[in-house]
């Protein structure tokens, strides 16, 4: 039986690990290689490494960091941040990524997702989308760089799935770093629109939240703050999920 994954997210600002609140207030958490080593020793299901400044600063994620992390992690590694071309993807894979997470480029160059899928395969491409509630309490896509995205949430999902991406990573920007629980309504709605795996992020506060997100329709749960700032580990989350009859890898 396929197990539901619990995936720690490690955010970078170039070279150090940080955590944001609502994508803004920042705290520095040190060396990514040390953080990755801890997760590897804890036997986590998968790891996501994202450089949140790369796109804005028009550079790529530091490949030495990716390489160092990958050399110690025999688990799937997703890498994102500033990836805009097939050459960028090839470099990230060469440095040890198994998958890449695309974000800004998906809507800046709408033909790119399809191109990336045709070159590297669906399994390699994770489409990361950030969602926020707009003025009329309707979910809208949110861009880190402040650019307007001319896609509704529904159109964006359809477009990404039609492009052949392997997974969707759904972030709720309103809940980022708040540890107030996942947005279950959003998860339920988005999962009903998709036939590919859905990873959700933004808001996890307790192991019970992970169970709730899976029951709402997520294939996998991802989180950063809960693992950085509390004593809760991915393993603890999975033990709780197991009690709730959710298949996990213990």
């Amino acid at each position, binding site marked *: 039986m396929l197990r539901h994954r619990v995936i720690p997210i490690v955010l970078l600002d170039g070279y150090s690990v940080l955590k944001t609140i609502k994508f803004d207030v920042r705290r520095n958490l040190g060396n990514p290689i040390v953080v990755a080593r801890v997760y590897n020793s804890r036997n986590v299901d998968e790891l996501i490494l994202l450089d949140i400044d790369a796109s804005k600063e028009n550079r790529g994620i530091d490949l030495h960091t990716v390489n160092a992390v990958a050399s110690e992690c*025999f688990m799937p590694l997703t890498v994102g941040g500033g990836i805009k071309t097939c050459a960028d993807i090839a470099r990230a894979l060469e*440095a*040890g990524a*198994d998958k890449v997470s695309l974000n800004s480029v998906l809507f800046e160059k709408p033909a790119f997702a399809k191109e990336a899928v045709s070159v*590297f*395969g669906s*399994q*390699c491409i994770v489409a990361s989308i950030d969602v926020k509630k707009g003025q009329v309490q309707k979910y809208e896509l949110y861009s880190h760089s402040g650019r307007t995205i001319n896609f509704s949430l529904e159109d964006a999902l359809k477009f990404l799935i039609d492009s052949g991406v392997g997974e969707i990573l759904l972030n709720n920007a309103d809940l980022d770093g708040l540890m107030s629980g996942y947005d279950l309504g959003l998860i339920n709605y988005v999962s009903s629109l998709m036939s590919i795996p859905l990873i959700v992020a933004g808001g996890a506060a307790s192991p019970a939240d992970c169970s709730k997100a899976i029951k709402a329709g997520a294939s996998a749960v991802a989180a950063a703050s809960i693992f950085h700032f509390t004593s809760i580990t991915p393993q603890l989350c999975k033990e709780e999920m197991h009690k709730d009859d959710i298949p996990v890898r213990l």
Partner: protein
Amino acid sequence: MITVINLGTGNIASVSRALKYLKIPHAVSDNPGDVSKSEKLIFPGVGNFFEVAARLKALGLDKLLKDKVLGDKVPILGICLGMQLFAGFGEEGGGTEGLGFIKGRVLRHRASQHGLRLPHIGWNDVRFGDFKVFSSINDNSCFYFVHSYEMITDEPVTSAFSNYGVDFLAAVQKGHILGVQFHPEKSQEPGLKLLKNFCEGRF
């Protein structure tokens, strides 16, 4: 020497890293000269069946692999698409011939007929019984999968299964020809053990 065949797609680096960690000497190459000198081959692959089959032909590796594996009986471990390419036929990308090492077909995973999401991504347990390349690994251990197609064999071969909507082929062996649908190089301890078993001839 063990050669990891590099077809320029996907996570060749991951396989090589895992072997390095295990201190197993190996070369990573798409050079027919290196392949023909190898005593064991590892054939990892991700991507599209049709495109990778075409690339094998373009590099002349299809004929060379047939000579080495079927003629000289050089052991080979196919990983993911690498395993799938051992079949005679794959429907992905429009339908084309594989290497034909194992009588079988590679079709869209039947999970979609059961309302399950594809690709099948994540950790799933593998029932392998006394399959030798899994020596010293606990039966029903979890391995990491990522694929949308599955191999269906048309001849009696040693098989291990996993379940996703239906039981599907997770590992296969026909003599010195071995394939795994999952990614041992990404499957932590059990995966590393399997790679070590293959490289050290326990199969």
